[in-house]
């Protein structure tokens, strides 16, 4: 059971959140070819190690945010707003 830091509310139990999959996936323009669109819809990274992912504090402030979580250790090294990039310090 993870303890996740909501950038707004602070550290809360995982049960207060809902998972939103890989972060930083830009929606392509609708005139891309079918293969590119399918890749956007259905393909996601699955690294063994640090992974930037989206969560929403669904039972709290209802804000979407990002964390970087190590999929091997579950260590969470960053929690940041969607407007920030994963490389930003903090």
């Amino acid at each position, binding site marked *: 059971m993870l303890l996740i830091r909501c950038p*707004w*509310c*602070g550290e*809360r*139990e995982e049960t*207060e959140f809902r998972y939103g999959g890989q972060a930083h996936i830009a929606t392509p323009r609708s005139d891309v070819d079918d293969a590119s669109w399918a890749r956007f819809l259905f393909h996601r990274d699955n690294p063994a190690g640090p992974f930037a992912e989206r969560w929403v504090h669904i*039972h*709290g*402030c209802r*804000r979407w945010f990002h964390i970087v979580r190590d999929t091997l250790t579950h260590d969470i090294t960053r929690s940041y707003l969607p407007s920030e990039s994963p490389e930003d310090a903090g």
Partner: protein
Amino acid sequence: MADSEGMAVRLQSLPQATQVGFRVTLASQMSAANALGIPALPGVNRFIGAGGLLVLWLGPDEWLLIAPDGMVEWESRLRNAIGADQGAVVDVSANRVGFELSGPAARDVLASCCALDLHPRAFGPGGCGQTLIAKAQVILAQTDLETYRILVRPSFANYVAAWLEDGVAGVQGHAKADL
């Protein structure tokens, strides 16, 4: 509702009150505060109680006003202050009901069903948070050293009350095994 007055903790239902939810851009937050007669809207995880009003932080652009019923047209007052293109104001008076849990053991009762850290170093009077009591979402606000206000959707009220009553029975040492 178990009336446990005189024991180390007491749980009671709160009377119906006016509740107005408002979401507002940074530009109009001061106007909203002015309309409510408070110096500024409360910050993250805090609420302000002033002049019979409670203003609770719910999110970075979202607050909840709780006021005594019928005195002032808070919905329209807030809407006028915020402006139609700077936010939203919604009457949610029926959307949640309130409980009050008070007494020296109130924090212990909440520790039986709520994972939030309510230690004075982490929370304390003036603190408020949206969290879970068992499986139900609630707004939890600490109004004084030993008193908590719990706001919950009416359809979850019986469930939350059952959990709190069970926690009360637990700290008072007359707990039953089964419900």
